[in-house]
């Protein structure tokens, strides 16, 4: 690009007629190129999903036809966690009081403490029963199952919710219990 060379004033030392091949600098300004490079890097970093999806194992118990063969549960060492709509969590330990006074409301942050407390205060027969109702989401269920592995709860079960429990949840959530479809 000799035509751009305007600095040809300096050297005619070899005299007229001798064509001087001017040494052009080979240096190019690389700044825009670096800019572009980093822009693309940023783009790729943000679009790459580095984390591979993981798999969370769940083993289901086989259905037992005969109720006598079912695992008997020590009622006092059980913690029942109920999942409602809008990420609401409810729990009670042991058996549900008919008046519902041991039925407590919680959320996904606090339930960990509840599980830990109960776990530390009971022997090895400790068990968690998870009862999602119809308004809870898949995410809630996975979260609570995850909570089991976080707290190293060895024994837990996913159980269908019973009618009174569903009613209690709906009342607590401020719904008219009469309109509820009820648990199946």
């Amino acid at each position: 690009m000799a035509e751009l060379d305007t600095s040809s004033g300096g050297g005619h030392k070899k005299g007229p007629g001798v064509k001087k091949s001017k040494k052009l600098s080979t240096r190019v300004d690389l700044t825009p190129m670096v800019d572009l490079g980093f822009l693309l890097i940023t783009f790729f970093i943000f679009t790459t999903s580095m984390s591979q999806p993981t798999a969370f194992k769940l083993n289901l118990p086989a259905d037992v036809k005969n109720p006598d063969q079912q695992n008997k549960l020590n009622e006092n060492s059980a913690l029942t966690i109920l999942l409602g709509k809008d990420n609401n969590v409810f729990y009670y330990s042991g058996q549900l009081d008919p008046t519902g006074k041991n039925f407590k409301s919680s959320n996904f942050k606090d339930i960990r403490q509840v599980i830990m407390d109960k776990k530390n205060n009971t022997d090895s027969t400790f068990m968690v029963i998870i009862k999602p109702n119809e308004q809870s989401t898949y995410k809630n269920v996975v979260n609570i199952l995850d909570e089991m592995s976080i707290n190293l709860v060895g024994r837990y079960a996913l159980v269908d919710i019973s009618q009174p429990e569903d009613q209690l949840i709906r009342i607590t959530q401020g719904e008219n219990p009469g309109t509820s479809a009820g648990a199946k």
Partner: protein
Amino acid sequence: MGRPKIARKSTTVDMTAMCDVAFLLLTFFILATKFKPSEAVPVNTPRSVASKIAPENDIVMISMDKEGHAYISTGDGSIDKENKKQILNTINSDKNLGLTESDINALVAAPFIGVPLSQLSQQAKLPKDKMNSQTLPGIPIKDTSNNEMNEWMKAVHDVYQGQKLNLLLKGDNAAMYPSFKNIIDALKKNDLLKFQMVTNPQNVPEGTDLWKENMEKKPTAKE
């Protein structure tokens, strides 16, 4: 007492080295990126602390999108495709669907199956890029009395007898529990008691029991 002359240094830095680094990194990221195939069924998976990477072979995956529609897909390997064909053949003869050979081949090539049994031949005639969660209604699971996942799982159970099977369930955050329960029921009914749920990794919260355990025995394979 003239002050010593400070040489005016040029502020231009040699960019070559920086440029080299930038493009090296760029090349690395381009090559290391595995482009996600655009998903026809969008599913936002929940997060869990599970650290095992989801398998990619010998899989049968049930996807559940946010409306609770279910779709079945298998892995991309040749064995997986062969098994998918057998599953389709089994279900075809069991239910007398009257699918032709070419229908079945089209369905094997399809990325997933997401129609009621009665509409399988219609899905077979759809072009591949038209198959997505908008056009396909999903496998009916909502109704407990007409849970077609049962039939599919029965076929899966028969075909994979004695073979290694990774049953994956990929559910969306917003899917409701009853859909999930119906899928589990279908699995239970067919003695498929082990399955894995696809999740996004998440760190173990500090101070919890699992965290303490992991601290004690340095990160090894945990359940």
